[in-house]
């Protein structure tokens, strides 16, 4: 099954995520985020067998499983087969303060890591596009230790200077104290991961900053695809590419259906 082709950008992003995870981390996986899900599963199957993963209400450990059947349908009662426990959503939400890492997406992500799942437009009662809603991202991203933002579509339409609405607070209008002065317990967004690049935030003003280009991506394209002035460091860090074993596990055990190998975003 494993074909020795080069890692795709999405596979590389998943490997990046996997490498951020410490063994024992408590991680919550939301719906419809195959790249983060792949990263978490890869970590569990390599260096983080004790990572504690919840998917909706199911607390699973997937370290020893042969393969995961469908990365696109992770929030599904079928995962109950690997569950060590099943908790109510309330218990889950009230355990957020213990969560080391969570993920959110957004219709819009702004330069300070605020995200918008509510809708696009100026007038709430006459939106150009109504989003799916915040799910639990407001509460989870306010409280969990840190979170990563996943961007399906790296374009100026998605990566905007300012969100029309904010569903999960990142760094507000910027500044390292913007969360603490609101009393938000969590440390905020750490990375923004798109199919083109990995970004983080400047320590002082909390503006978004390029960290790594993903394989096959051009700097000028990333700059043009971002709807605000992305901070470009003088020296762009090299990202150690996925190893053969990481790719093999991704392709043979984590992502059998090839969500991360499709070219479409």
């Amino acid at each position, binding site marked *: 099954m494993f074909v020795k082709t080069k890692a795709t950008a999405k596979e590389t992003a998943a490997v990046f995520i996997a490498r951020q995870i410490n063994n024992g981390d408590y991680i919550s996986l939301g*719906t*419809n985020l*195959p790249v983060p899900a792949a990263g978490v599963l890869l970590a569990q199957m390599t260096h983080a067998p004790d990572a504690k993963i919840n998917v*909706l*209400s*199911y607390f699973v450990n997937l370290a020893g499983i042969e393969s995961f*059947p469908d990365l*696109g*349908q992770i*929030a*599904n*009662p*079928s995962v*109950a*087969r690997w569950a060590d426990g*099943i*908790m*109510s*959503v*309330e218990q889950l*939400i009230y355990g957020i303060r213990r969560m080391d890492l969570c993920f959110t997406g957004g219709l819009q992500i702004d330069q300070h890591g605020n995200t918008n799942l*509510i*809708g696009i437009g100026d007038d*709430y*009662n*006459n*939106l150009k*596009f*109504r*989003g*799916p*809603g*915040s*799910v*639990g*991202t*407001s*509460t*989870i991203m*306010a*409280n969990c230790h840190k979170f990563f933002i996943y961007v399906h579509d790296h374009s100026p339409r998605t990566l905007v200077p300012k969100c029309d*609405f*904010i*569903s*999960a*607070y990142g760094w*507000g209008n910027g500044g390292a104290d913007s*969360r603490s*002065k*609101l*009393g*938000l*317990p969590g440390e905020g967004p750490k990375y923004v991961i798109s199919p083109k690049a990995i970004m983080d935030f400047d320590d002082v003003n909390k503006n978004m900053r390029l960290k790594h280009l993903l394989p096959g991506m051009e700097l000028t394209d990333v700059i043009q695809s971002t709807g605000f002035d992305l901070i470009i460091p003088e020296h762009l860090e090299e990202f150690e590419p996925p190893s053969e074993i990481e790719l093999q596990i991704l392709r043979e055990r984590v992502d059998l259906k090839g969500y991360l190998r499709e070219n479409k975003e």
Partner: protein
Amino acid sequence: MSRQQLVISLPEAAAMIKDGNSVGIGGFVTTNKPMALLREIMRLRTRNLTIIAPPSSMEVDMLLGLGMVEKLITPYLGAEAIAPLGPFHSGWAGKKFSIEEMELGTLVAGLRAHAMAVPFIPTRGVVGTSIPSLNPTLRYVEDPFGGPPLIAVPPIEMDVVLIHASQADCYGNVQHLGATFIDQLMAQAGKKVIVQVERIVSSEEIRRQPENTTLTSEYVDAVVLTPYGAHPMASQNHYRVDAEFIKEYVRVAKACVKGQPELFEEFVTKYLDNPHGHAAYLETVGLERLFSLGEGA
């Protein structure tokens, strides 16, 4: 005297929901949705409903599409990787129905406030977001211990709450045998609670593992027997989501909001209005199709 049995028929259950009621829908996204109950209510075209639901999917979209909803309160409407949905994503929101912007942690806090009989539960969950300005029921509250202010979420109550679960006895003791999502909180906040189940079992069967009981009869007003009653959604321990069915719905719903209601109307006629009762609906879907939804490898 002997104990009262709570088992009623689907039409009896649907008649408990009146025009203008607030209706809570249990389950989560595409799992454990009380579809048989909802189909029966949709057949009646009960109107001006306020719908309160945790993350939801096609069931809420259909209610919107049928024009039954006045106000929608849900943190999410979608179907994960299966498909985006119809009316909710269109220009209908804010016009054909209103939305009271909600978030899951906030919904849980509001249900919790009701259960605890307090006027509010404080949360930091939506501090800094747009939600406090979009949802007029929320207020700021000072922290008497000197920290920054929080958001106060007032109690949420519903006229009727609809739940899907694995099994119950005839007295209304319910066992999900899996995730309860926020069904317990929803039930606590419902003036009336109707539970549809895959099977009705004996009281003795329930008492074999009383720790598995997820709703005791304190919280249940009626039980309805609806095998395959969550279709096309998944029913934990019983069958998976019928993704193709949802995709079919999404096609007709999308056409509808683009001004071509014919396919939507056909769909409604075929699956809602024509089948006389739940068994007839299942036969319309086809038993072979239903059997194929069992758990795979």
